């Protein structure tokens, strides 16, 4: 029997109220409007794997990340961690043990570190919050150990964030993320603000830490090449929904959803082979008024009448889960 997943979401939904102000609604006779950033997401993340989510801006991947770590409450549905539904935990005392096990690395290492705190203070914060080690030499040793693990020097603990480059700051964020001995790390675009040579260092560091600490990653990125290097399984999101979910090799060699195929075709051709590519058309529609039927149909080269009316469900096709009425069209 397969092992139970570490994290599972069931019918996860997050809506945002994007209505005009009350007076405007009253005067212009408008109703309330809402935006479904995440729209009924079911996924499972296995212990020890890197599960990647890809998609363009507005697809809901960062909203999902923020729900995972408790920064946002789901509107509906459940997030289960080790079989426990996190949204049912009402008191702080109930939540705290899970908060310790789930940590997040943010995209922008410039805004995610408090500029007035010394690095050792930043890294020790999760340890203090969770009362893991009392203040004193033991805490200093732990902070020094964390700094070394992420490739910095224990002496860096006395400095302030502005004394570091972007890549070094992201190392500090990672050290803070590891401080509470988490099991699950949500990495939201951890390298997209970094230069490519620094990106390689951070991606390698994340891989090394995963191996040495037995971590599970939810890795969110818009960069497919980064996802190819990091992920074991990949989910592709479009307008709040999963449109394809597959193992990394399968997804990159046999993309089944036309949107996945389109994303792959946007990749610059570094080998300069001049391979044939489908021309990319259109932009992501406004998520406040998503298209009827399949949300991708206005941009899809294979769309037919059914796609405009009926929303396709995620179904199994040759080991991949695909939400498309013509799941093999993109393979041709």
């Amino acid at each position, binding site marked *: 029997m397969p092992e139970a997943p570490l994290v599972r979401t069931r019918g996860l939904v997050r809506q945002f109220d994007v209505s005009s102000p009350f007076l405007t609604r009253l005067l212009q006779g408008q109703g309330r409007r809402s935006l479904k950033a995440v729209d009924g997401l079911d996924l499972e993340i296995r212990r020890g794997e890197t599960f990647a989510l890809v998609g363009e801006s507005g697809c809901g991947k960062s909203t999902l990340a923020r729900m995972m770590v408790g920064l946002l409450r789901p509107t509906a549905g459940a997030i289960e961690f080790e079989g426990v539904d996190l949204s049912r935990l009402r008191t702080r005392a109930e939540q705290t043990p899970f908060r310790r096990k789930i940590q997040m690395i943010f995209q922008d290492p410039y805004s995610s570190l408090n500029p007035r705190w010394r690095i050792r203070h930043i890294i020790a914060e999760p340890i203090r919050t969770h009362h893991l080690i009392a203040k004193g030499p033991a805490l200093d040793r732990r902070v020094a150990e964390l700094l070394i693990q992420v490739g910095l020097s224990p002496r860096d603990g006395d400095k302030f964030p502005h004394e570091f480059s972007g890549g070094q700051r992201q190392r500090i964020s990672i050290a803070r993320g590891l401080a509470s001995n988490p099991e699950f790390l949500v990495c939201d675009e951890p390298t997209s603000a970094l230069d490519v040579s620094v990106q390689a260092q951070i991606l*390698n560091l994340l891989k090394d830490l995963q191996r040495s600490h037995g971590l599970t990653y939810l890795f969110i990125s*818009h960069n497919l090449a980064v996802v190819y290097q990091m992920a074991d399984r990949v989910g592709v999101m479009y307008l709040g929904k999963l449109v394809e979910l597959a193992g990394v090799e399968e997804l990159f060699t046999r993309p089944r959803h036309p949107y996945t195929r389109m994303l792959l075709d946007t990749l610059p051709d570094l080998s300069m082979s001049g391979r044939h590519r489908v021309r990319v058309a259109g*932009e992501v529609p406004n998520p406040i008024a998503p298209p009827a039927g399949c949300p991708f149909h206005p941009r899809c080269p294979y769309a037919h009448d059914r796609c405009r009316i009926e929303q396709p469900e995620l179904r199994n096709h040759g080991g991949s889960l695909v939400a498309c009425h013509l799941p093999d069209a993109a393979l041709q």
Partner: protein
Amino acid sequence: MRPLLSVRNLRIELPTRHGPVVAVDDVSFDIAPGEVLGVVGESGAGKSLTGSAIIGLLSPPLRMTSGQILLDGQRIDDLPEERMRRIRGRQIGAVFQEPLTSLNPLYTIGRQLTETIETHTALTPSQARTRAIELLEEVGIPAADRRIDSYTHEFSGGMRQRVVIALALCANPRLIVADEPTTALDVSVQAQILALLKSLRARHGTAMMLITHDMGVIAEAADRVAVMYAGRLVEIGPVREVIQRPKHPYTAGLMGSIPKIGGPRGRLRQIEGTMPGLAEIPTGCAFHPRCLQAMDRCRRDRPSLAPAGRVHTACWLYSASVDDLTAGGPDA
């Protein structure tokens, strides 16, 4: 053929309390009519400053302290602001990363375009409007005759960048300086903007200086590429040659650290360390502390650009043999 643009020994300094620091150091290159030169480097390498110097928009206290910039054989770096303003727009167009900074939110798209057209050409207002609609059609804005009276907030990010490109094209310039034109855009839109830039070159023979941190963009759109590191040009040559057979160890390291799809997954090749700050550029070759092949000479003497196969590179690994042949080299 005479180069359209010629940059000779460009040096840009930033005065500080501790004396001037050199931000761009002895950079020389040419752009031929109709050629796309990519300029690639990490943040702080000096690529954007080089672009700003060419369009005469270096923001003080940064200043050009030596060197020359020639357009069609005429110096343009020492022109009074009034004459430079006419060259900018008429002969050199500019496209920046964030389209909103180049557009005025209070004017319609049409007003911004027609004003620019009337400034730089002898067209009447009604002719200018016709020309503005043509330009919008050319950059791929659907229903241009209606959209021309829209405001920027009514456009998506990709459409705004198209408008900025239309603005840059108003006076049919011979050179466009594009600084990270696709960086702020989603991947699918990025591919469309690159396709547009390529088609403009094919139709009008507009030369372009394409500044980017993304080697993929260079591979897609440039003819030649110049690689910058710590304010210096380290390698310049045909794109395919530089990407597939990089000569300079920094270029090779940069290429190795780019995640690619296909092939082995695992650790990425990484360059240890980070690019030095402007105030702490080492002696000799600026890359030597991070270079695995550094020799004594690299720590002592600064290499200058010299031919190496089909490219030019500033590296003693390649220049050594040249010096042996020509008695009277720096070490003789």
